[in-house]
């Protein structure tokens, strides 16, 4: 199999699994317990917290473990809204956020909040100026993703952070696609809250974290026991937390060199597709782009059928985000770029990982043109286009 869907999820690295294993069957004590054997687990969590903090430029007591990126996003957004509702009821975000941000925002809209969904430009970017222009006296939260999961566009986070700071507004970023892939420094970038998810950087599914700047009063989303210093209740997922930290540590090792390699493959794929397939469009910013993201719309054809053909040849790719692949709607991200309905439907995302090779890209480049051609030959839209242009 040629796996090109690393933005959907990644395999757990063997070293990560190895680090986790002892905590399932051997060091299984509840970290909150007072006896010695459980204290080891408490230490494992503390160590993991320090590792995660280190890679974000944060302090350990600013890191709270969650069950994933979705929980972190929900917690940050609904929690800050609750905490600051006396101060104001306005939130600023973009129209290409992940649903784990958009849906909490829509939920808040039903509960007395107002949300500005900034419109991105055709490359998927918002500017710090747009953000600043949207600020009102009652604005309490800015939540803008670090990098988009579908098109890979990287937002000007430091600039937005500076604007947020200037106006004294809390700034959250969904960095699920960025953590472990791009260098991050929450202090230099003026980030107040940051969500991450373990399975996007070769860690286990069902793990995540929220960085919460010290001093920020964020009420819990999950109420209960006193875990995570009374902020996030529930028996700690010790193996998961250990795995997340190990994975992040590995991901941040030689990040620059790994990224250079992946970027080269990415560009090879992008250029190869452009050279071989007419009527296609690269979605997302050409430069300000995740090193592993390739997203194309192929005119006149529909994405799912192309994915099926690729799948038959052992190539795993995706259209839009994984968690909406059951849905029939075209991607809200691609529509936000201004793509017409049919083109938004005809997009395919290849997201590369550390182990992909140039040979694999060659296989894709060898197969893809014929698949696109085949589907176009079946397409009434292509028929019409050819008729009109002949």
């Amino acid at each position, binding site marked *: 199999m040629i796996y090109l869907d690393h933005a959907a999820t990644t395999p757990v690295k063997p070293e990560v699994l190895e680090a986790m294993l002892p905590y399932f069957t051997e060091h299984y004590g509840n970290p909150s317990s007072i006896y010695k054997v459980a204290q080891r687990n408490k230490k494992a969590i503390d160590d993991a917290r320090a590792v995660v903090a280190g890679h974000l430029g944060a302090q350990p007591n600013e890191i709270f473990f969650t069950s994933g990126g979705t929980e972190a996003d929900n917690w940050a957004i609904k929690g800050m809204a609750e905490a600051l509702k006396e101060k104001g009821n306005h939130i600023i975000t973009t129209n290409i956020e992940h*649903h784990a941000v958009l849906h909490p925002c829509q939920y808040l809209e039903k509960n007395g909040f107002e949300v500005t969904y900034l419109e991105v430009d055709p490359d998927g970017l918002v500017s710090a100026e747009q953000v600043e222009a949207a600020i009102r006296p009652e604005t309490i939260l800015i939540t803008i993703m670090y990098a988009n999961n579908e098109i890979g566009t990287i937002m000007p986070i430091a600039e937005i952070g500076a604007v947020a700071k200037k106006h004294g507004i809390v700034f959250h970023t969904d960095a699920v696609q960025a953590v472990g892939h791009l260098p991050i420094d929450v202090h230099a970038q003026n980030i107040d809250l940051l969500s991450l998810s373990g399975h996007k950087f070769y860690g286990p599914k069902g793990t995540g974290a929220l960085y919460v700047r010290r001093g920020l009063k964020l009420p819990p989303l999950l109420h209960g026991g006193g875990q995570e210093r009374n902020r996030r209740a529930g028996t700690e997922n010790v193996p998961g937390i250990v795995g997340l930290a190990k994975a992040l540590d590995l991901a941040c090792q030689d990040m620059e060199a790994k990224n250079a390699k992946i970027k080269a493959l990415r560009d090879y794929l992008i250029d190869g597709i452009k050279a071989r397939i007419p009527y296609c469009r690269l979605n997302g910013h050409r430069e300000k782009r995740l090193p592993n993201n390739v997203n194309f719309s192929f005119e*006149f*054809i*529909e994405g*799912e*059928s192309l994915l*099926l*053909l690729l799948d*038959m040849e052992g190539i795993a790719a995706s259209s839009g985000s994984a968690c*909406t692949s*059951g*849905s*029939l*709607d*075209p991607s809200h991200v691609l529509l936000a770029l201004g793509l017409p*309905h*049919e083109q938004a*439907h005809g997009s395919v995302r290849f997201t590369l990982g550390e182990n992909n090779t140039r040979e694999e890209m060659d296989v894709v480049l060898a197969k893809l043109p014929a698949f696109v051609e085949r589907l176009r*030959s*079946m*397409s*009434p*839209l292509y*028929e019409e286009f050819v008729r009109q242009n002949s």
Partner: protein
Amino acid sequence: MYSQKVMECFMNPKNVGEIENADGVGTVGNAKCGDIMKIYLQIEDNIIRDAKFKTFGCGAAIATSAMLTEMVKGKTIDEAMKITNKAVAEALDGLPPVKMHCSCLAEEALRAALWDYAQKNGLTIDGLTPPDNIHEEEHTADSGEN
């Protein structure tokens, strides 16, 4: 997610293409997903001699187009009128629930092509109503529950 039969029909679809000077042509679009299906019929003595399709759509849409065009060949118009989307889906060993509408697209495209044939020849076909014109229909992005 798809049955083997669907995948077979998708991978090696029969009847892809156009019929020149077709006796009936029907194009329908699915407001639900934006997919488009076009069916060409060649009809002689009340019998469908040939059927071809072009489809912009998902795997299920392509498979149902191929299956439907295969099913109607050799049938009288009355017999063809009795083909339902369920029959097409069954012939494909079923479709996932979210994909049932793709088979509706096939049924509608067939009826649109028959309507076109009837219009051209001044006929009335029992039970046939004019198709919805897709170009008048808004693409209402059915927001589902996602």
